[in-house]
């Protein structure tokens, strides 16, 4: 590769290759930004990358199985008891919720309210994450073959995680609600106050920049999705107020909301689709 023997012709060739590939790259950026033409390219390449994710999952599964194999019997009994206790508690809560749901349905029928859309739940595993100040994204092991569509709401045990922004046959990319380019319409059920929460590139917090200090908001209040814009399914937990005070500058309050999930601990998610 030494340039000692490279003549003018070859140097021109190198420059020609460089400029032509730069032009192709810029054209690809333009195509990707302007439309869906490159989605086919992305899907095709994502399929070829899929074996890498499979190898990763295999290694994780194997390590989990090995660590499970070496667990002590007492630890296992302890885990089983804990899970059973949790299960009992959840069953009791579920019965209460079912009675509320039936009552709610009866009232809706009486008032002739348009029936709510049914929601499909799809469990999926997180196989990759890209976390830096510019973007907060994860990759899940479910794609269009499993019914994931662009815009599907993604939740975890800690509440809304984000929404699907690109999908291939087998995997999908999810933009998190903490991503600096993301905004989510939310509501405070206690007062009915609606606003929009923006991601700021912070893994744990959201920004609510246009809230005035005279709003009835208390520390510990829990915001949920409002469903406005018809992207997010309503009434899923988004975050909890951890600070509400008068802003230092301008007419708006200083409001900090902590999201309910921790990115590093989110391994399984549910993808919600309207039926």
């Amino acid at each position, binding site marked *: *590769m030494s340039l000692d023997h490279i003549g003018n012709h070859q140097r021109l060739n190198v420059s020609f290759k460089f400029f032509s590939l730069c032009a192709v*790259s810029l054209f690809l950026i333009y195509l990707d930004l302007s439309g869906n033409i490159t989605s086919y390219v992305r899907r095709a390449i994502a399929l070829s990358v899929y074996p890498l994710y499979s190898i990763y999952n295999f290694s994780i599964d194997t390590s989990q199985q090995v660590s499970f194999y070496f667990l002590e019997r007492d630890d296992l009994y302890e885990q089983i008891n804990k899970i059973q206790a949790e299960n009992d508690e959840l069953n009791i809560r579920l019965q209460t919720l079912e009675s509320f749901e039936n009552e709610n349905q009866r009232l809706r029928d009486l008032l002739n309210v348009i029936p709510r859309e049914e929601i499909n739940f799809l469990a999926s595993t997180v196989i990759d994450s890209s976390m830096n100040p510019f973007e907060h994204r994860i990759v899940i092991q479910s794609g269009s073959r499993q019914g994931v569509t662009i815009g599907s709401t993604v939740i975890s045990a800690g509440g809304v995680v984000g929404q699907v922004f690109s999908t291939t046959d087998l995997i999908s990319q999810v933009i998190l609600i903490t991503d600096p380019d993301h905004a989510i319409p939310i509501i405070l059920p206690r007062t009915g106050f609606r606003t929009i929460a923006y991601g700021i590139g912070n893994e744990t917090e959201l920004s609510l920049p246009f809230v005035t200090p005279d709003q009835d908001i208390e520390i510990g209040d829990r915001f949920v999705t409002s469903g406005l814009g018809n992207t997010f399914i309503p009434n899923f937990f988004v975050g909890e107020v951890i600070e509400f005070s008068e802003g230092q500058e301008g007419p708006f309050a200083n409001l900090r909301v902590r999201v309910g999930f921790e990115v590093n601990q989110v391994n399984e998610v549910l993808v919600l689709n309207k039926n």
Partner: protein
Amino acid sequence: MRQLKLHPFLLFSASLLLETFPIPRFLSFYFPSWVLLFFIIAFLYSTLSSVFLYGFMAGLFLDVILGTNIGSNNLIFVTIAFVLIKWIRVILQSPGIQLYLIIFIIFSLYEALNFILSGFIQISLSQINIIQPVVNTLWFIMISSVFNFLRIYKKSHE
């Protein structure tokens, strides 16, 4: 320097595999951009001939894995390939510290191009990851030392 026969395709696959492995947040600062690191190593230590093609493909795969705009990493890798080809004589003839300084400049160039293409208007200067070129260079020193050791070991047994 370029006597070890490492298959570029294997290095490329290994780097993609490493890139897809999620790592804890506190460790992410200490991990390099594997694809770029292995791309440079493949260029310097193996028989990588189609530098532009490999750079272009590496960028394409990286865009898909990272979810960035298709074409952005292609542009960065093609530029890095161009710099590598232009500087190859200087790189190969540079001793120790000077070589690593050049490598550091290449990694800094990578971060700078990444910053520009990420839309620097939205990002404050404080968010630029200035530690990454240093981390990448340190990893390069470690990995290239291993390759150098293997080269010397191979020579001594011939």
